[in-house]
């Protein structure tokens, strides 16, 4: 995908965000009472409108702007700007699952599960030694340093709790 198409898609998405945002702001946040009280609505609305204006500019520039001559450097840069949707989606799922597991099972159980999953699925590592070493090692080291030495509260599970 070229930069131009990226910018058109980005411009359209951001313009939609600004429209929805501005509508939600008008619909849900009360306006000020005047006499110096500009209210809680003014700034979010102004930011929404600014986003709408800037995304329109981006769109117009992408559609009507002069197409740049693609140099070798641009081709290399474009090849690097390919979005890796699968790893990105997987990480999002893993982070959300980690948060949920921390809430329900606590840090000591959630961490080795997530590390194990990441090493098996994302990194495709099959060495049992490395996987178990990393899962147990990271969990124990973090637990000892943060919970025991520094006194930072690590999550306790609401279903099960160890440590």
């Amino acid at each position: 995908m070229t930069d131009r198409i990226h910018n058109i898609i980005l411009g359209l998405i951001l313009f939609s965000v600004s429209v929805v945002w501005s509508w939600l702001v008008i619909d849900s946040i009360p306006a000020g009472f005047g006499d110096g009280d500009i209210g809680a609505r003014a700034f979010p609305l102004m930011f929404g409108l600014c986003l709408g204006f800037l995304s329109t500019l981006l769109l117009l520039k992408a559609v009507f702007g002069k197409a740049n001559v693609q140099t070798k450097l641009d081709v290399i840069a474009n090849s690097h700007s390919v979005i890796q949707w699968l790893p990105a989606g997987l990480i999002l799922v893993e982070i959300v699952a980690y948060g949920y597991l921390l809430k329900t099972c606590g840090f000591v159980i959630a961490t080795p599960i997530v590390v194990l999953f990441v090493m098996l699925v994302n990194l495709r590592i099959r060495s049992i030694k490395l996987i178990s070493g990393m899962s147990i090692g990271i969990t124990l080291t973090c637990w000892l340093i943060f919970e025991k030495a520094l006194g930072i509260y690590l999550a306790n599970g609401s279903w099960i709790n160890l440590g």
Partner: protein
Amino acid sequence: MEHFFSAFFLSMTPTSIAAIGLGALVGLIFGSIPGLTFTVALALALPISFSLDTVPAIGLLLGTYIGGMTGGSSSAILLGIPGTPSAAATVLDGYPMTKNGNASIALGTAVIVSVFGGIFSLVIMIVSVDLVSKVAIGFGPAELFALVLFGFSTICGLCGTSLIKGLIAGVLGLMIMTIGLDAIEGVPRMTFGSVNMLGGVNLLVAMIGLFAVPFIIEAFSEDPPGTNKIARMSNVRPELPSVRLLSRNIWLMIRSSIIGTGIGAIPGTGGAIASFLAYDNAKRFSKKPETFGKGNVEGVIAPETANNAVTGGTLIPLLSLGIPGDPATAIVLAGLMIHGLVPGPALFMNNASEVYGIYIVVVVAYVWVLGLQLLGIRVFVHVLRVPREILAVVVLVLCAIGAYSIRNSPFDIYAMGIIGVAAYVLVAVRVPITPIILGMVLGPTLENEFRTAMMLSEGKADIFYTSLTVLIFFTLAILVIIFQSLSELKNKKKENENESENIKVSDA
């Protein structure tokens, strides 16, 4: 002189030196791990300080504060993930320096200039405490709004290749920070009835998401965008910056220290604003502005000097007026009061020995930081020898701990993930991330001070043009925008000329 000697003996006891060292070490650890702020470290250190005498107790707290402020640069330089908001500007050139194989030079420079900035600001503080506190206390909401607006004008210099995309990023940062309970009227904004959303998006959580999650995704991708395999570097050498490099940049260090001290003296500002302003100033007056963002050491010197100079600056209103500039100094203030030191003009008369003791403690804390960090560099750079994907697994766990520990809520972990993936997509379509951080740092102050100023003036806009300070900041902001636009136009013209030359060559 008698007070000074008595303070010197109080500060040089083994207990004092050990307390300062412990504070500096804990601060460094907390500062270098994204999400674990030195404010948390200070909150943990405060109860320990109860059992100590006055000077060691203050030493423990100030050591933690100073260590934390310095520690943020390590992860910013090595991983591109700032440990604290103050270190966000350091990422811009610190991480590219690591990619270029100059990690230890960047780390060494950051430590040395941090110590320079800290001690320089202390000297400024000692000689100008009366004058600066009078000027700083004169900053009302209108002046603060103008200052923040001036800070925001630096966004033009952080936009990278596209001014529109940079401004969009800045607006996105501003929008994110309006989510949650409105600070002035308590109205819920864009919370969709969720209790978790009432607290809004925490700046640190967003920062972890913006910098750490794209790093993790890239490390886990087979063909990551912007690939630069900095991992498994075989030529990682723990080198220190040369004296020549530092002496060549002495004027930049002095300028950045002045910016940091000035910003630090104004309550409600902080290290992040100072470091961005100093970065912008360094870029503007550099002989090679085009190398900024690609690993220019000046881009590390300016923000690191400035954010540490803030430590001296914040002591000015703290000691002379009893006004803490940020949550961290509020905890230091609590520590002072618990030990019977009531900040204000009388402090300098009634507790002169303790005040001199505080000055000496700051110097000792910086000596500790210098020693610990310079020793640590030998260890830190070996992080780069760890395979990038394995490092990413550790970073994932540390970031989750950091995000969770801010409010003990898994909601912050979800927010980190969503913001992080969105940031990854934005980076891939070449939207710069730094303006988002700038928007998030400055957004709440910008809105709150504007609204307070309007309320104070009962809706009359003259509050924004009758104060000389306000006019100065507005003028500076306009000048920054004009100069930036002119240099953008100049660059565009140059690019167009190069392109037409390329076309001619290819036609031929």
